[in-house]
């Protein structure tokens, strides 16, 4: 121990640590053992191999850390590894859905897909496009947004700024109930109320009404949360200047919460843009271009995907994939736009 005497006395604050190469070595060891198991039988599938490797690594790391570093570090390493594992498990389906959709959707991702409808295109015919469905989705989502966003924001303002007592609690409970409302129920409601009881025809507008019902609770909840985050100090500062309450809400509270409100609205749009069931019930669907949302059947992208994917023909299934890809891009573009709005708003505030 001649070298030890040359060193200063070890600090009592420095505990024993596993060397930095330990995790890498453990991964290698786990891979090796899982490889042997794969040859011997118990781990002879990809899933089994990955599962064995992961489990062996976790056990090995915990045991080694416990022996060298003590219980607290061992638990820290175990939980850290589990959290990373959860992250990977969460990302795998998201990324694989995206990759699969892009891979299969590229086949028909061409200009005719975005410029033609399915009029006179039979199930077995190649060509055709989703222009009619894209128009329908854009119009229906815009109309639904025009209904749900103002009403939702007003409800949220009521709940945060004015609502006290039983009525506010009742409203809040109903918003919660609506959040869990199955989308088919919203469609059935519009079908029975708007189309059957009031005798209106199938139309994109009816679909937009159903979508608005689905969007409303999302907008209310997210806006409400954002308004509650605005400090009361700002409201009081405004009152103290002799600013009336309504103007305080419009000019101080809402601008402060705006980035969050925009994000909430976008979540609502993303949710309803992909809804098939209510649209199927009340817009009827068509293969032709119908730019008038107020009369006649209209299609939409989810409906297009649903109908094309059900046809027993590869050209139709290709169209369905491209429709799905278009829908994902539509929602992503809207999200991007919302992020930009939020970004520039924050930049204006210098944060």
């Amino acid at each position: 121990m001649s070298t030890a005497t040359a060193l200063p006395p070890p600090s009592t604050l420095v505990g024993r640590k596993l060397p930095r190469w330990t995790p890498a070595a453990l991964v290698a060891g786990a891979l090796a053992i899982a490889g042997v198991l794969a040859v011997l039988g118990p781990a002879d599938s990809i899933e089994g191999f990955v599962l064995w490797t992961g489990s062996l690594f976790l056990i090995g790391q915990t045991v080694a850390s416990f022996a060298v570093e003590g219980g607290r570090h061992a638990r820290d390493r175990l939980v850290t590894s589990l959290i990373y594992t959860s992250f990977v498990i969460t990302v795998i389906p998201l990324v694989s859905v995206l990759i699969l959709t892009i891979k299969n959707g590229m086949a028909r991702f061409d200009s005719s897909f975005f410029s033609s409808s399915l009029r006179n295109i039979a199930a077995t015919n190649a060509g055709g496009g989703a222009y009619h469905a894209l128009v329908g989705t854009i119009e229906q989502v815009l109309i639904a947004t025009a209904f749900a966003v103002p009403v939702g924001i007003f409800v949220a303002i009521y709940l945060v700024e004015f609502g006290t007592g039983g009525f506010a609690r009742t409203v809040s409970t109903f918003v919660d109930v609506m959040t869990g409302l199955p989308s088919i129920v919203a469609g059935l409601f519009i079908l029975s109320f708007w189309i059957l009881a009031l005798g209106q025809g199938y139309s994109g507008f009816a679909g937009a009404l159903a979508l608005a019902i689905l969007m409303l609770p999302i907008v209310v909840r997210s806006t409400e949360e954002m308004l509650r985050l605005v400090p009361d100090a700002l409201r009081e500062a405004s009152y103290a200047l002799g600013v009336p309450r309504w103007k305080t809400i419009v000019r101080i509270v809402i601008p402060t919460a705006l980035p969050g409100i925009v994000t909430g609205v976008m979540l609502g749009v993303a949710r309803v843009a992909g809804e098939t069931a209510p649209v199927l019930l009340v817009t009827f669907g068509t293969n032709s271009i119908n730019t008038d949302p107020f009369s006649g059947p209209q299609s939409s992208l989810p409906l297009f995907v649903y109908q094309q994917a059900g046809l027993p023909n590869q050209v139709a299934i290709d169209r369905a994939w491209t429709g799905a890809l278009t829908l994902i891009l539509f929602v992503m573009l809207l999200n991007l736009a919302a992020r930009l709005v939020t970004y520039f708003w924050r930049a204006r505030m210098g944060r």
Partner: protein
Amino acid sequence: MAKRIEIESLSCFYGNFKAVEDVTLSVEPKSVTAFIGPSGCGKSTVLRALNRMHEVTPGAHVTGRVLLDQDDIYGPGVDPVQVRRTIGMVFQRPNPFPTMSVLDNVVAGLRLNGMKTKSTLAEEAERALRGAGLWDEVKDRLHRPGAGLSGGQQQRVCIARAIAVQPQVLLMDEPCSALDPISTLAIEDLIAQLRDQYTIVIVTHNMQQASRVSERTGFFNISGVGQPGKLIEMDSTHKIFSNPTEKRTEDYVTGRFG
């Protein structure tokens, strides 16, 4: 333009809880009046009752009268918004509006109450910022966000914002408790300048500050947890800190407080 305040048998409630009982005092125009006392004794509550900010808390209400010259601010039909335009307030923590620039913060009261002309607003902003002793420090960054200034500068932006609407009374609720000594000194100098134009009421935990800035001081106390706070003594600041009438005041200002 400064006005006198007469408080007559004011009691403040939060729901059924009586926070302050039977306060009667007067605040002289164009002077600085300080409220001191331990935490929870109701001095901030009384201050907030003076511009009807107390009632912003759900369930809060008052009894008694608060006269602004002759007018009872709690009289029937009185619009609290109008009261607050006359009686401005500065809060404990600087609270500039985060969505607004320095300039927009200062003129927020004017703009939100209907003044639109840009040039007038710019003039008023300069006047208020000069009044708050901040013009030279911020004149080159009027269009930067108000939240980007230091704490002391933010608090002076808030004071500028309060005086921009030309109130007749300025209420200050522990305006320096979140600030460092240098910024505190700047605010105290500012109070000394503002006293020529405004009636100022300041709540402070800092007794040296009360003795430095105020002409008259009121001492509030509370006899126990759950009991209402009361005004123990109100007199010239010099008398309160050198030769108070009440034993409880003397114990508090000399630090022998139980």
